């Protein structure tokens, strides 16, 4: 069972829900922190490190002795990542998406692929949680390939939680696609509502069942609840607007540890997640690009 925790708006409490849900589940759980631009779950779990791997994307390297500057590679490339300039071929690795097309179409077999590192995948353990997180190198633009590497570490069996990046663009899709259920975290404000509606549209497009968690319940207005009622969306949990929560979060404490009367809320969410119907549909396997290394 793969459950993704997502939101349109940032800062609504995805990581809070993911970490506290993970700690409230009865068995072992894998938590994949796919917010590789701002990975935060480790700050709350303080996991014992258990592995570290540099990951990258395959980019072309041209053998100047074999290349005859025919230009087939640059004709195919949709990202302007390879170009014939005079008598040589220039590669712009930071523009390359790693599709491998240039190497396939090169009639002289002059292109081989080399890995360009874009970040690391780190693993660790804390209590019942096996944490896998991606960490994008600062200055790197291309996020989905690293997310796919984190996803590729996900177990086939058992419970897998995904902490997704905010938004509704390609990064969020890379994190959420192929999951069995999505928990959309929002807050009862106009910004929260606007971005929840975008996230709902996205998850519906993906065809994945989902429910809503309202964080800081009671702080804004009732429009999120009215929207959920109008759209027949299930509200899985409401986390109250409580200064103790904000203060515990600020210090890096988990709510289930710091505030005992919050525990039943996450226990109830955990019970709902554990009671989800078993998976029937086949899902796309996330494949790591590491295997294309020549």
């Amino acid at each position, binding site marked *: 069972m793969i459950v993704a925790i997502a939101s349109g708006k940032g800062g609504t409490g995805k990581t809070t829900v993911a970490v506290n849900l993970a700690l409230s589940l009865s068995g072992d759980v894998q938590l994949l922190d796919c917010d590789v631009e*701002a990975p935060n779950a480790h700050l709350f779990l303080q996991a014992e490190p258990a592995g570290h791997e540099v990951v990258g994307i395959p980019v072309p390297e041209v053998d100047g002795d074999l290349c005859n500057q025919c230009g087939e590679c640059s004709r195919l490339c949709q990202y302007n990542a390879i170009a014939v300039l005079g008598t040589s071929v220039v590669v712009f690795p930071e523009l390359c998406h790693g599709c491998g097309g240039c190497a*396939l179409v090169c009639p002289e077999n002059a292109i081989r692929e080399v890995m360009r590192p874009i970040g690391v995948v780190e693993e660790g353990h804390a209590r019942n949680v096996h944490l896998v997180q991606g960490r994008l190198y600062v*200055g790197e*633009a*291309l996020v989905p390939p690293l997310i796919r590497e984190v996803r590729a570490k996900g177990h086939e069996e058992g419970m897998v939680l995904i902490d997704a990046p*905010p938004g*509704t*663009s390609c990064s969020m899709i890379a994190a959420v696609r192929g999951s069995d259920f999505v928990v959309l975290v929002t807050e009862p404000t106009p910004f929260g509502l606007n971005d929840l509606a975008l996230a709902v549209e996205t998850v519906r497009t993906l065809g994945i069942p989902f429910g809503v968690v309202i964080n800081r319940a009671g702080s804004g207005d009732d429009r999120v609840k009215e929207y959920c009622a109008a759209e027949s969306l299930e509200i899985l949990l409401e986390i109250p607007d409580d200064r103790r929560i904000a203060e515990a979060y600020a210090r*890096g404490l988990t709510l289930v540890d710091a505030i005992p009367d919050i525990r039943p809320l996450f226990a109830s969410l955990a019970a709902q997640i554990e009671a989800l119907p078993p998976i029937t549909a086949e899902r796309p396997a996330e494949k790591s690009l590491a295997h294309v290394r020549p």
Partner: protein
Amino acid sequence: MSGRDSLSTSLPIAGAQAMHARVPELVVISGKGGTGKTSVVASFAELAHDVVVADCDVDAADLHLVLAPEILESHLFVSGHEAVIRQADCDSSGTCKAVCRFDAVMEIERPRGFVIDPLACEGCGVCVELCPSRAIDFPERTCGEWFLSTTRMGPLVHARLGIAAENSGKLVSIVRNEARNAAAANGSSMILVDGPPGIGCPVIAAVTGAAGVLVVTEPTVSGAHDMERVLELAAHFQIPAAVCVNRWDINPEGAESIEARARNHGAAIVGRIRYDAVVTRAQVAGRAVVELGGGAADDIRTVWDHVQRWMEG
């Protein structure tokens, strides 16, 4: 603010902009989402008198909820291509599935064949090129829309990225370019940019070549962690950075230490904003915090004064 002048002259400036003196851009970012970027930008827009506002958080844009724009122009954002199999011509060779590195090709049972998941297609064209029966079309992809609007606080350029769309960085670049055109046309003194969260493609597109970035953070472990990543990003692109701690009184010692960490990264500290329920009330009312007044509004005014002085160097 050292380095700003050399930056604005050394960066490539597209087309028409090269003819105008470049209007400085202040980009508000955070790393972590939900720290209050949009509330701060909306208030700055109210306090400033001659700015153009650009909402570069294109996949979860919220500024329009406060600025209530009247849209003057809307334009489709067409970017890249997507592969589409013509079922009638497909001979089920499976080549597309074999060559696709993005798991975008699905095998279907009835009728037996292949389809491409548009949400996963990266638009690389490799399947189009290698399909033995040439059965794959490669149309352009509409990835969203951008708008030029007028608001009670001045011109606003904003956008909406299509659901699950790619190329958010490119849309961010378009929004910034159009904001520069609007600023040149209006003789504006500054462009205020509401940036996206994170440090990846859209953030890089939002900050490169800007006069300065203001990092709005919060005194939490994640706020501090993500602030440091975004300050490293600003340093990487040699953009001067300032930091403002929002909701500082949730964790006063945390605010202290986050400011120390920011100084270590060479950032200027431009003030603190207290926790104040009026921030949410303003959002609910569709107003900027400074339009309602109160403690947080006073703090934001002070931060704006400091930011202006810092921008002037």
